[in-house]
């Protein structure tokens, strides 16, 4: 690199182009995030006492990520790759600088121009936030220093040894989770009478204290040093213990630990967290149903909320004394039977017309059905039967002999939802390996081939619709009993989309993936109307869900917890190429896959 001047010059020119390109994107995204209002709105949530709020974090991660991207070298086979060195650090720093310059321009703009008319966040609040309630000069200096610093750190991630990188990652993500999970940890420690613990970690006004942050960071960073692959070894040993008896025993142990935790923990949790868990459960139930339709059978159903609505409305009509037309006021158990019948019928009715359509038409038509059903519930036509926009209120609590499940007692709702979720998980798990499940997967991979192999595609697809519909209607029934009322407004198209995001982020076709997806997304960001742990996100949830959907499809279409089969399907071309290139290439790919 140093000997050949023309080559190094060329490299420099290329680098310069790269830096200005990524730098301007970095600046644009920072300005965009500021103007969308994320920082000003999220500034309420303090992560680290008097140092860092969620709002600032949302600006700060950008130079870090772009510094990382810009100094990433494309490794080409057969070409001598330049060694990573100080030049990369410099490019990372410059990218961060570009981003900060964008912010400086924004500050100057807010100070001198009035663009408040179309842009609602072009206001003094944002200005104060950006200048740290100080002068523009001070703000600019701080942002430039921070941008350059973070850009350099991002770039240097490539050059650290994997051990250090691991430590940094543990510390960062650990701290972030501690800060986000503040409510849960607070609640748990209260339940276990360990208030001193949460008092030690968190400040009174919210956020971690600076000392606890430093201590935790050090502990978390040392964690990988102490464990040093022991965890991985255990997992490997668990995997290699392939005798069926051992594996069976291990899964039983694992399962009972999780079961005990899930059953016992709610007693130590307060109302808010239990409510949150109940919501997560409701959406998990929905997501498990959609997982069968989208994940296993590959039918992109965008009107899934229709079945949710059918469950809710059927329960409301059969149990509520306020149902305007037909109100038998039956017990929840009996209405549940009716719900199953109605959901099956709805599944068949919606499924039958769309079953022969090609995949993308199916998506739009089901979306249309979802809207039709909502509009019908809302219309004056069905108002004498279903209450129109006022919906049906006064749905009684579920009476289970000694216990009563009602919305005011989230713990009971959680156990109710848990029971349904366990059922749904069991059903999906058994279906996956069954004849029907294998038929679904075959249809997903190639419908014509599946048909030629003797699978009755029409019936299998209809079955997928029906099973998904029944699971969703259970969720709707429990929601109706929990909230005590149903309105057409609760069944908007958003619900379908959010569940789709949950399934896709978790991993299509993977039960564990769906569980992880709903816990992370619904638990932290929240459902369509239900707040999550970060309640401040309420207005930006959909923005983030949308971005997440695009990101996942581009970078990891198989989801966070993928199934092996789906991964193979989605990366078929790469696998074929690898097979063509030979075995050693294949091994390399696997290593890369592990690192990811």
């Amino acid at each position, binding site marked *: 690199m140093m000997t050949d001047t023309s080559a190094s010059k060329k490299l420099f020119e290329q680098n310069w182009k790269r830096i200005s390109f990524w730098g301007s994107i970095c600046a644009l995204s920072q300005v965009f995030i500021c103007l*969308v209002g*994320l920082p000003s709105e999220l500034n309420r949530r303090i992560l680290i006492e008097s140092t860092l709020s969620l709002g600032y974090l949302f600006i700060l991660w950008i130079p870090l990520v772009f510094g990382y991207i810009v100094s990433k070298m494309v490794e080409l086979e057969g070409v001598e790759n330049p060694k990573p060195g100080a030049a990369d650090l410099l490019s990372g720093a410059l990218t961060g600088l570009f981003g900060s310059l964008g912010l400086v321009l924004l500050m100057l703009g807010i100070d001198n121009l009035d663009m408040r008319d179309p842009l609602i966040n072009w206001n003094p609040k944002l200005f104060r936030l950006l200048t740290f309630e100080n002068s523009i000069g001070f703000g600019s200096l701080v942002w430039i220093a921070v941008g350059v610093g973070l850009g350099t750190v991002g770039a240097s991630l490539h050059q650290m040894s994997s051990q250090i990188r691991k430590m940094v990652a543990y510390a960062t993500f650990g701290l972030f989770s501690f800060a986000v999970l503040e409510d849960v940890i607070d609640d748990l420690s209260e339940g276990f009478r360990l208030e001193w613990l949460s008092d030690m970690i968190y400040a009174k006004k919210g956020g971690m204290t600076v000392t606890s942050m430093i201590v935790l960071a050090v502990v978390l960073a040392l964690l990988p040093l102490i464990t040093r692959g022991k965890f991985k070894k255990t997992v490997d040993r668990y995997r290699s213990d392939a005798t069926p008896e051992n594996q069976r025993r291990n899964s039983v142990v694992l399962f009972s630990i999780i079961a005990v935790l899930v059953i016992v923990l709610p007693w130590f949790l307060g109302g808010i967290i239990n409510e949150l868990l109940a919501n997560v459960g409701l959406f998990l139930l929905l997501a498990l149903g959609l997982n069968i339709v989208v994940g296993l059978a590959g039918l992109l159903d965008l009107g899934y909320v229709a079945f949710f609505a059918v469950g809710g409305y059927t329960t409301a009509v059969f149990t509520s004394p306020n149902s305007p037309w037909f109100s038998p006021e039956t017990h929840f158990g009996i209405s549940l039977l009716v719900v199953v019948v109605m959901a099956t019928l709805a599944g068949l009715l919606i499924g039958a017309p769309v079953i022969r359509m090609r995949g993308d038409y199916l998506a739009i038509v089901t979306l249309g059905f979802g809207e*039709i059903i909502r509009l019908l519930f809302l219309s004056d036509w069905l108002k004498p039967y279903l209450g129109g926009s006022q919906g049906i209120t006064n749905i009684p609590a579920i009476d289970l002999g000694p216990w009563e499940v009602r919305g005011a007692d989230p713990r009971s709702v959680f156990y109710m939802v848990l029971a349904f979720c366990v059922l749904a998980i069991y059903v999906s798990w058994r279906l996956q390996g069954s004849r029907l499940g294998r038929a679904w997967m075959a249809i997903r991979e190639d419908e014509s081939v599946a048909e030629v192999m003797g699978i009755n595609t029409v019936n299998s697809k209809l079955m997928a619709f029906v099973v998904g519909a029944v699971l969703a209607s259970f969720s709707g029934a429990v929601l109706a009993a929990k909230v005590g009322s149903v309105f057409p407004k609760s069944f908007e198209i958003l619900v379908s*989309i959010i569940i*789709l995001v949950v399934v896709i982020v978790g991993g299509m076709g993977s039960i564990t993936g769906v569980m992880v997806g709903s816990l992370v997304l619904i638990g932290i960001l929240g459902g369509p109307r239900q707040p999550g742990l970060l309640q401040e996100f309420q207005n930006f949830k959909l923005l983030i869900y949308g971005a997440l959907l*695009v990101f996942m499809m581009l970078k990891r279409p198989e989801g966070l917890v993928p199934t092996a089969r789906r991964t193979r399907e989605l990366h078929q071309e790469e696998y074929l190429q690898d097979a063509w290139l030979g075995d050693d290439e294949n091994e390399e790919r696997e290593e890369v896959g592990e690192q990811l």
Partner: protein
Amino acid sequence: MSEIVKKRFKSRVSGVDRFLTFIRVLMATLIVLGVVAFISQQIWPNNPFAEWRNPDARGLTGDQFKGLVVSGLSQGAMYGLIALGYSMVYGVLGFINFAHGEVFMVGTMSGWITSEKLNDAGLWESNFILSLFLIIFVAITTSTVTAIITERIAYRPLRSSPRLIPLITSIGVSFFIQNAVLGLFGPASKGYPRLPEWLSKQRSIFTVEIAGTKILVMVVAGLSMAGLWYLVERTQTGRAMRAVAEDKEIASLMGINVNRTIVITFGVGGAMAGVGGILWGLLFRSVTHMTGFLPGIKAFTAAVVGGIGNMGGAMAGGVFLGSAESIAPMVILEPLGVPGVSQLKDAVAFTVLVLVLLFKPSGLFGERLSQEDRA
């Protein structure tokens, strides 16, 4: 044994088929009944058939009916303009660009900002024609740029993946753009400035009372359609687009820059959506971040109705859908005794989609797709 399998297989398949036939017959009967009841109401208001389901219905006067047709046509022209984008992208890439409705919304939004600024500067009142050209120009630019950027970021990397993957991505893009606009400009509904009197006043053409705005909408839509037809059928670029739609590989072998052509397709679709957005703004004079959602889905319906990939079809499908959604509630549902029919406008549009796919999945004018997409 194989005989038995065959028998069972056959009978099961026909179960669904029988059900579909039943739905087809049912829907056709309902439509015919509604129309007949409507006609009999018109001819002789007190006959027993007309009063059978809906004794209160008095039918429509001639002027009311003409009004419905006119508003249906002008709205349909807009659906047609948006539908062109769906149809072109589907023809070339074979996937539904769900975010196209948002491209339309962005056009309307940018038109609102510009018209607001022009109104403040006084140009809107003093020289309306110039400001109209200005806002159309701004809207076209914004929509085109949005469409091209989404193509570059979200769709290009996915060109070889299974068909549903870009569809899911476009749903994500759609929600992202919607909520980004919500964050930038706030949730309030934004009103376009008042139109000059000479444009918005009622005029009478061939005994039809029609607002000047609606004439403007139809004229602009017709002009854009003619321009597009010229571009696609008579220019080199258009030929490249048609070739890429037919077969990407062969087209690239013939020396066509496939990437560039796809970008142009997205751009042209976006420009049409931008024009549609301005027309929407002039006609309804209000815009929110959700403006693009329903028109987007309806425009897709229009594209399917006309036969996807078929541009004349998209325009005709838009006009058909617009009139159906404006007329059908009063003509078919009202005589059947459904109360509150105007609320069911959107439901009618979706029902049209389902019906077309049930009766003639390739659309009224036939689809134009490449071999692989037809599967």
